[in-house]
C-alpha cells in the first residue's frame, strides 16, 4: 500500500504509485495505462496482435493519429503509393479494433504529441504511452508519459498494461528568468549540452523553479519533449493554475463536477517540499543564450555567440568532433553567426504550436526570407488558428510555404526532405545524420532563431537582428 501520509513523495513517486497494479519480487511493476496513442508506425504492433489472434483490451483508451507519413501538401491525395498504404493501414487497423482515429481528413488531425494536449486527452496524473520516444512531451501537464517500442505497443494493446522498473528521480531546478527572445527550446538545448545526450538516462526528470513556473504550457511541452534527447525516461512539470487554465474546455477534458474533482487531485500531485531526488541539478535561466546545435547530436549545442569547436580532448573525442564537422561541412573555429543556410523548417512536435508560429511570425513580419522554407503547423487546429490570426500571410509574404500538419521534415517519412549537403535551420528535435534526408545538415534552434536565419540567409542571433532592424 502507498504510504499516503508518511514519507514525502515527489511528483513522479505519486504518479508511479497510483499506477501500480502489482509488484513482482524482482522489483518490476505492472502498470496501468490510461491513454495509448498509436500512429502509422505502429503497424508492426498490430501485426503482432494478428499473429496472436488477440484484440485490443481497451479501445476507448486508445487513440490513433495520422502524422508520421501524411503529406503536407495536396491533401487528401497521397501521390506516393507506399506512403498512402501506411496511412490506409492505420485506418484499417483502428477501424478493425474500434479505435478513434484522428485521420488525414479529421479537423483535429495533427502530430500526436500536439493533438493529445490540445484535445484534452493528455491530463495531469495519467500514465500515457505511445510508440514514439517524444511521448515525454505530455509530462508537461503533469502526466507520466514515455515512449515505447513495438513489442510494448502490442503488449499495451492486448492488456492495457506494461511491465516497468521504477526509474530514478532527477530534478532540474531553473532559477531566474529567461532573457528576451530566449525560449524553452534554448533552455532545453542548454540542459542537453550541460548534462549530455545520455545525461538523464534511467531517470524520470522533473523540472521546477521560477523559470519553469513562468513558462507557458507550450514552453513546458517543448522542454519535456526535448528531454528524451538528454536520455530521460520521461519528463514532467507539476500541474499548476496554468495547467488547469490550459485544459479547461478542451474537447476530451473533464467537465463540471468531474473537472472540479480532477483539479483537487491534480493540485495534490506536486512534489512534497521535503521529497528526495536521486539526483538534483540547479541552473540559472539568465545563463541561457539563444542556443543552436552545430553537430550531429543534440548535445552538440552552443550559444549562437560561440564558434564551431576545435577537435580537442581524447583521441576518441577528437575523432568524433572531426567526423561531426566533416558531416556538417563546418570549419573548426569559425563563428556560428554568419554560416549560410540553404533552407528553413518550422514544424514538429517540439516547436509547432501556436505560440511557436507567433514567435516566428513576429520576426518574419514585413521581412523577406532569403532561402526557401516550409512551415508545417503542429496540428490542423493550430493551422486554422494561425490562419485566423493572419500568420499564414506573414509566412507566405516572406516567401515561405505554409502547409498542412504532420511530422513532415522532422523525420521526412512523407517525403518532405532536404537534399544531400543542404544546411537546414530547423525547429525540430534531432540533428542526427540523415534525419532530414541523406546527407542533410540540420541545425536545431528555436522558431524565432529559424525565422532570423530565414531573413538573413545565415545563422543569426535573433536578438541582434531585432535590435538592428528594429
Amino acid at each position: 500500500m502507498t504510504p499516503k501520509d508518511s514519507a514525502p513523495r515527489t511528483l513522479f513517486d505519486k504518479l508511479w504509485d497510483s499506477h501500480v497494479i502489482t509488484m513482482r519480487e524482482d522489483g518490476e511493476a505492472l502498470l496501468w495505462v490510461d491513454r495509448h496513442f498509436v500512429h502509422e508506425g505502429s503497424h508492426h504492433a498490430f501485426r503482432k496482435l494478428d499473429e496472436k489472434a488477440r484484440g485490443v483490451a481497451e479501445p476507448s483508451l486508445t487513440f490513433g493519429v495520422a502524422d508520421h507519413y501524411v503529406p503536407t501538401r495536396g491533401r487528401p491525395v497521397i501521390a506516393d503509393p507506399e506512403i498512402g498504404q501506411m496511412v490506409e493501414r492505420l485506418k484499417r487497423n483502428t477501424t478493425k479494433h474500434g479505435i478513434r482515429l484522428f485521420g488525414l481528413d479529421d479537423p483535429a488531425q495533427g502530430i500526436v504529441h500536439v493533438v493529445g494536449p490540445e484535445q484534452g486527452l493528455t491530463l495531469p496524473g495519467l500514465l500515457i504511452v505511445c510508440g514514439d520516444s517524444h511521448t515525454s512531451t505530455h509530462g508537461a501537464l503533469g502526466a507520466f508519459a514515455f515512449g515505447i517500442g513495438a513489442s510494448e505497443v502490442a503488449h499495451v494493446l492486448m492488456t492495457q498494461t506494461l511491465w516497468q522498473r521504477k526509474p530514478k528521480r532527477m530534478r532540474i531546478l531553473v532559477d531566474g528568468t529567461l532573457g528576451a527572445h530566449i525560449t524553452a527550446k534554448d533552455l532545453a538545448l542548454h540542459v542537453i549540452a550541460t548534462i549530455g545526450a545520455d545525461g538523464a538516462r534511467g531517470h524520470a526528470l522533473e523540472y521546477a523553479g521560477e523559470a519553469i513556473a513562468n513558462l507557458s504550457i507550450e514552453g513546458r511541452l517543448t522542454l519535456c519533449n526535448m528531454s528524451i534527447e538528454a536520455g530521460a525516461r520521461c519528463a514532467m512539470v507539476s500541474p499548476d493554475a496554468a495547467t488547469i487554465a490550459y485544459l479547461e474546455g478542451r474537447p476530451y477534458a473533464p467537465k463540471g463536477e468531474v473537472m472540479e474533482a480532477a483539479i483537487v487531485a491534480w493540485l495534490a500531485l506536486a512534489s512534497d517540499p521535503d521529497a528526495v531526488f536521486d539526483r538534483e541539478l540547479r541552473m540559472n535561466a539568465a545563463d541561457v543564450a539563444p542556443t543552436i546545435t552545430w553537430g550531429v547530436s543534440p548535445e552538440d549545442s552552443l550559444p549562437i555567440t560561440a564558434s564551431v569547436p576545435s577537435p580537442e580532448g581524447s583521441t576518441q573525442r577528437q575523432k568524433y568532433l572531426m567526423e561531426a564537422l566533416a558531416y556538417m561541412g563546418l570549419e573548426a573555429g569559425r563563428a556560428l553567426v554568419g554560416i549560410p543556410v540553404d533552407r528553413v523548417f518550422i514544424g514538429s512536435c517540439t516547436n509547432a504550436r501556436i505560440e511557436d508560429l507567433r514567435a516566428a511570425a513576429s520576426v518574419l513580419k514585413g521581412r523577406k526570407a532569403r532561402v526557401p522554407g516550409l512551415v508545417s503547423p503542429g496540428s490542423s487546429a493550430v493551422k486554422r488558428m494561425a490562419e485566423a490570426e493572419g500568420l499564414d500571410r506573414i509566412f507566405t509574404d516572406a516567401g515561405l510555404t505554409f502547409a498542412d500538419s504532420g511530422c513532415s521534415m522532422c523525420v521526412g517519412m512523407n517525403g518532405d526532405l532536404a537534399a544531400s549537403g543542404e544546411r537546414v535551420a530547423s525547429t525540430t528535435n534531432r540533428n542526427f545524420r540523415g534525419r532530414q534526408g541523406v546527407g542533410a545538415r540540420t541545425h536545431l534552434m528555436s522558431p524565432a532563431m529559424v525565422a532570423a536565419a530565414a531573413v538573413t540567409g545565415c545563422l543569426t542571433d535573433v536578438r541582434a537582428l531585432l535590435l538592428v532592424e528594429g
Partner: protein
Amino acid sequence: MVPFTTLNALACPLGLENVDTDQLIPARFMSRPRDAGYGGFLLHDQRVGPDGASRGSILDNKAYAGAAIMVARRNFGTGSSREAAVYALWDFGIRCVIAPSFGDIFASNAVKNGLLPAQVSEVAADAILEWLAAASGRMITVDLQACSVVCGNRSYPFVIDPVRRLQLLNGWDDLDLTLQHEAAIKRYGENRRREHAWVVPAVS
C-alpha cells in the same frame, strides 16, 4: 523468443559513439514488412553512398562477415523508439551489442527480441575495441550466466538489469506473465474509473 545463454562469435568493432536509431535504420525503410528482412537496412547510409556504391563500412568487410557481436561506444541506440533498429541488427545476424551505455528504449526493445545489450565500462569498451583492432577475425565469448565478456585471456564484467537477464536466459515473453494477472488488471481498471471519474476521456 529464443533464449540467450552464452555466445561465442565473431565480433565487429564498430567503435562509434552516439549511434542513434536513425542511423541504425533510416526512417524511409520502416514501412517495409518485416518478412522481407531488415538486415540490409542496418546502418544503411553509412554503408551505401547516394550512388549505390559501397562506402567500405566495417559491416561489409569480409573479415567480419557473419559477426554476431557488435562493439560500440557510449549511448548506443539513442533517439527514436523504433524497434526496427533491433530488427535490422537481428536480421543482419547481431545477437549482442557491447557498449558503455544504451538508450533506454533501445535496451528494452533489444531484450524483447532476444538481443543482449551488454553494458561494460568505458575502459573495458576501449580495451575490447583495441583487442579486436589488433587482429581481424577475433572471436568473443559473451556469458549471460556469469555476465562476462571474454576476449582471449582477458575477461570483462558487464551489467544488465536482473529481470532482463532472466528474460533473456529463459526466452520469456511478457504476455504470458501478464495474463496470469488478468483478474487484478480488470479489478484495477474498474476501480480506477470508479474512484477517479476524470480519467475517462470525456466524449466530445
